């Protein structure tokens, strides 16, 4: 009698806990590590200032993936960004990746501009055409003070 009630209480605890874990990992974490829905591509940028892991990747304004990680290439001293792109979305190998800002001081995200090439970018491939983050400060100073050179 007493034992079964303990077992039931433990069972309820486990169910609540597992529901919470499920909520966290499926709703919030989106279970990327299953690797089923996304494939990785890489892109090199001169600067990704302001971009963070987890930022959106958009194509024509539609959410198509996420920035998975940002690392520095120690040889070339450029930023290497790993993007996770939804499976089923085929990108050509001359696609352009640009770091954009939503609004004036909003979050940075990556905008993909499709290219015309026939060959497709393979999973794990490298996007060669990139536009770095716009340095808003230098842009403003240029506008205000006029290009000194």
């Amino acid at each position: 009698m007493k034992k079964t009630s303990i077992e039931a209480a433990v069972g309820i605890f486990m169910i609540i806990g597992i529901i919470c874990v499920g909520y966290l990992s499926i709703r919030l974490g989106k279970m990327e590590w299953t690797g089923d829905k996304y494939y990785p591509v890489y892109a090199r940028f001169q600067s990704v200032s302001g971009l963070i892991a987890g930022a959106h990747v958009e194509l024509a304004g539609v959410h198509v993936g996420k920035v998975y990680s940002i690392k520095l290439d120690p040889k070339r001293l450029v930023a290497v960004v790993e993007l996770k792109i939804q499976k089923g979305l085929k990108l050509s190998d001359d696609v352009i990746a640009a770091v954009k800002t939503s609004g004036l001081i909003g979050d940075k995200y990556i905008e993909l501009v499709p290219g015309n090439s026939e060959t497709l970018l393979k999973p794990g491939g490298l996007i060669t055409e990139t536009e770095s983050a716009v340095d808003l400060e230098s842009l403003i100073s240029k506008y205000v003070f006029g290009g000194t050179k």
Partner: protein
Amino acid sequence: MKKTEQNALATALLPASAIGRWAIFIIRELGRIAIFFVKGFLLIFSLPLQMSKIIEQIYFIGTKSILVICLTGAFTGMVLGLQGYYTLVKFGSEGLLGAAVALSLIRELGPVLSAIMVIGRAGSAMAAEIGIMRISEQIDALETMDINPLRFLISPRIAAALISFPLLTAIFDVIGIFGGYMTGSVLLGIDPAIYFYRAQTSVLMKDIAGGFYKSLAFAVVVVTICCFQGYYTHMRAEGFGAKGVSFSTTSAVVISSVLVLIVDYVMTSFLI
């Protein structure tokens, strides 16, 4: 002449040797604790499995902690919502509240605070219970019956902690996120859709996995320290009997709380 020189040298080195002794003591103690944990952990899998004991311990460590975890989780989330809102509103980005609350809960506060709450609720009780079993020779009695006290007493607790801690942390996180929603959206008027959208988009699986690893690490730290302190109550130099148990309980709570915070820092620096 030479002798006095030697004496002088010895006196000069006194603080150094004291530090050395202390260091050796700490290292030995760490080794003992590690061996204690590894033995206890491996014995979880020795047959026959002690399922009913593990369930009993999950009941004690997990189920009975739900209420306190819910309460602390809710209020932590609520206060994060309040503080976050008034900080973010200065930058006009109160829309990020969801992200702020969810990330700080999942990465840091969830694992740490639930570990500390469990230390207070179950860890102290564990140390006291095992300590009393030690001083009333119950552990010796197990040994004379050829029942391995580590397997009988410690292994079920380690298993139960490893199961309970991540679940409690998850409950804490979810309740906390809804707590943040309560203050952020219901009280201060952020659009709930934005709150949850931000929470969803900002949290990565990496964060959740990190929080999960942390909670496992804290489970190991808490259960090992608390059981260890109780188990070796009789070896304490400061006090015997009931006094020894009280010392054990105190040091179990203090050491495991401090260690949780230290381990948290170390793990965060690796996970980021």
